[in-house]
């Protein structure tokens, strides 16, 4: 049975993260700064900041580690489970490091980027937990390639029959095959919709044209229409499939580049604090 990374090893890394958070919170409550309000510059502030920066670098290292299949003694599942839970725990550690002092400056920029990365990671967890099942249900055992082949076949079938019908219908059938492009830009993939879908257009149009056919051709017309309807259903299924896939991928386009921006702002944060000590 496949074990989710969330319940991996009986929540070992969740427990680790909760311990870290609990210790940080207790220390924050107990600690009385010698001067001024709680802030990043007290003894505890420096401690939490150091823990935070080490965590961030280690969490970012996961991007390197996951590319090295089979290397290292610790399993990748351990890494990922720890990455998820310690990343969530970092929210508390870093927030306590700020002493709840925020402003329009490089320090809060680093904090915001960190929160942005973590939130995108939470999105990633959600899609990884939810979407594989939705995708399987949507494809009903086929692969995406199978679905595309079925669409191609329906193109051929419909074309074969529509040849003998009028040009109006045949042109719609041809357009529904030749103009059909699945997926597309990032927004199209993420929305799973296509306003100018040629298949949808063809179904609507042929549906109207069939009514005007002579009795002898009515049977063939209805056949073409049902083939187009079937194709539309497949096309939408593929779009849904692409949408799930895109959502499962898109968060990494935020998570990874913003992580690098975070590392850069973290460097600026640390340098600036000691530059203007």
């Amino acid at each position: 049975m496949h074990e989710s990374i969330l319940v991996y090893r009986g929540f070992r890394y969740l427990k680790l993260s909760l311990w870290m958070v609990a210790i940080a919170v207790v220390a924050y409550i107990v600690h009385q700064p010698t001067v001024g309000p709680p802030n990043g510059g007290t003894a505890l502030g420096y401690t939490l900041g150091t823990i935070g920066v080490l965590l961030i670098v280690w969490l970012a290292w996961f991007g390197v580690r996951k590319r090295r299949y089979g290397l290292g003694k610790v399993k990748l599942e351990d890494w990922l489970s720890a990455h998820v839970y310690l990343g969530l725990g970092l929210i508390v550690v870093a927030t306590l490091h700020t002493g709840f002092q925020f402003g329009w400056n490089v320090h809060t920029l680093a904090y915001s980027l960190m929160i942005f990365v973590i939130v995108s990671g939470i999105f990633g967890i959600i899609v990884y937990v939810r979407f594989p099942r939705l995708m399987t249900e949507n494809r009903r055992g086929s692969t995406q390639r199978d679905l595309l082949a079925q669409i191609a076949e329906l193109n051929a079938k419909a074309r074969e029959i529509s040849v003998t019908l009028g040009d109006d219908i045949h042109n719609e059938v041809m357009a529904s095959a030749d103009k059909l492009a699945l997926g597309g830009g990032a927004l199209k993939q993420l929305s799973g919709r296509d306003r100018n879908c040629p298949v949808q257009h063809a179904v609507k149009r042929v549906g109207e044209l069939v009514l005007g056919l002579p009795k002898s051709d009515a049977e063939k017309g209805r056949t073409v229409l049902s083939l187009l309807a079937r194709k539309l259903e497949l096309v939408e299924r593929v779009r849904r499939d692409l949408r799930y896939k895109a959502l499962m991928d898109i968060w990494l386009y935020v998570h990874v580049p913003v992580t690098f921006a975070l590392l850069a702002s973290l460097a600026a944060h640390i340098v600036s604090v000691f530059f203007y000590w």
Partner: protein
Amino acid sequence: MAILVRFITRKRSGGVAHRDQQVEGTRVRFGRSTDNEAHLPDPRVSLYQAVIEQRANGVYAEALGGADMTVNGQPVQVAQVKKGDVVGIGPYDVTMIDPPGGEALALGVELARPMGDDLEKLVARSKLGLEQTGMSRRRWAWMLTLLVLAVFLVWPVAAFFNPSRVPDTDANKNFAFRPDMMWNSGEISDAHKPIAQQCNRCHQMPFKMVRDEACYVCHESIQHHADPKKFKLPELTEVLCESCHKEHNGEPSIIRKDQKFCADCHGNLVAKAPASTLLAVGDFLKDHHEFRPTVAVDAAAGKVERISLAASPRPKERSGLTFPHDKHLRPGGIRGPEGLEALDCGSCHQVAPGGFLMVPVAQEPHCQRCHELAFDPVARGRRVPHGSVEAAVNVIRDYYGSTALSGGYADPTAPEIVRRLPSRVVLTPSQKREAQEWAETQTQQALQFVFGSKAVCGTCHMTTQSGEAASRRYGVVKPNIAERWLPKGLFRHSSHATETCQRCHGLDVTDPAKWEARVKDAAPPFFAATLALPSDDGALGAVKAQVKAMQQAGWSPAVARQASAAAATVATVKLPEVDGLRQVRRLAEDVVGAAWSDEATDILLPGIAVCRECHVGDSGLTMAQPNNRMPSSCVTCHYYHTPTQGPMNPSAKSADPHRIPGQYRSGGTEPGESLKGLQTSIRNSSRK
């Protein structure tokens, strides 16, 4: 039973090839899976898509699991089929053919719609996946990283090393933007807001904590907490300004106010600094000694001493002044130039600008209107000047000398020569001698009257005289009046404006034992006169009942309070006019007036207990006490940088002590310029 499945392949040349397969049983299943009787290896076919079966009543084609199937082009789920019918299963056409070898059933299977270009073209047109959209995580990562580093690190650092190219925030307050402002970790304190835009005013060296020299630029003469040569403590010598004054925390003030900061050392100063003579202090409520005002113990010698208010006997102030308060504060008023007038504290005492000190009382604005300093009833309008013994003696001498020569002295006992109408008559030598003798006698009498009696200088001052007769020398002890009784504390009168003066300065507060004794003296005549009043009408009856109860209860401190309250009622409330009421009122005033000091040596300062009625230390109260007092830490009244310990800045040009309001002691006669105006306005308002 056997079924023949014939797989037909059409060649490009037009020829047809076929491969036959015998199936035992009554059905043939079609699908992509290899365990189908008819294996259809095409991606468009499901694993088990359809079945063709010999049933009792004929041959049936049936789609499996809702899959696609057509019979002669019509989409159906199940249908009976006969010879010649074409069943469409995905891209395959299955035709019912004549069994060539006598089998029960024969099926021709042909890939009628090969995948061909349709699929490849569709795939080519589509973008299947975000990786095909041209978005690149790597490119984004590089762009963001370089952008952040350039804007938030390189730019500010470059600005720091090229200060001439940074906008002048003083010249363009509204628009100038310094890139290092993006490093600002929090709002700066209010006092530093004017330089908040100029990071390099404080942050002068990279990777170095803010140096004290940066602070000394403005805080040039800031004073030490204690003499660092005498007290070589790391707390005093090894700290930076910024160790205590932490900026950028969004707080309006960066002055430390925590009691612990002071009490850590001052709670046990003997251990920390054995050389110190200061007493140990901690929490204001629990651990602060009684106040030790600076008391003038000998005005003539100008000697002052710090003496605790708790000392026994209670310290006495010998300032050189002799007038008591109670003479001026009779509730019914005192005789003034325009008749009876009631004075109160504010008639003489006003809070000085700044709110901390009182304006020093001086003769001209406060006393002169009633105490005119006349020295001879005949010499109308002639007065000695205040402030200089020499000037006073000269005025007297001049007056009698010139009168003796000019005449016109309207006193029947004087010699005729000085009584004559003023004229320019030239006197004979004997007349002249007689007049001069008279003048000398009069001068000596007047000097004795002015300096030697309780009438002029002696009304308020201690005076001295030495020598005999004509060569006698007179003097007035220079008053040594406290401006700041408690110079180590900062008491702000204006912060306590909601309280009455008496709340803290009444004799009942400052010296309760003395007050009680005075009430005890004044009460019996008041009691007796009250009970003797010939009426019990209205409020009078109630007062008489009160007095009777007090008499019966016998004397106690509580009765002193009640007697004072009853007397205040009689003195102020409207009572039925009966014979003897005036006398009772006068006696009541004596009881009330007992709260006013009757000796100039009384020190009318409240003890620490009076402050504690409202103030507690910043550790607050114990659980048992209601928490309705104001938490006050050490810096509520004291300061860290003590004004007299020398500048911290080694290169301070001026050694002037850090300014604090007022001096410790003043002569009482020559207030500074700023106070003169105030005294004039007080004088003018009291004349109205």
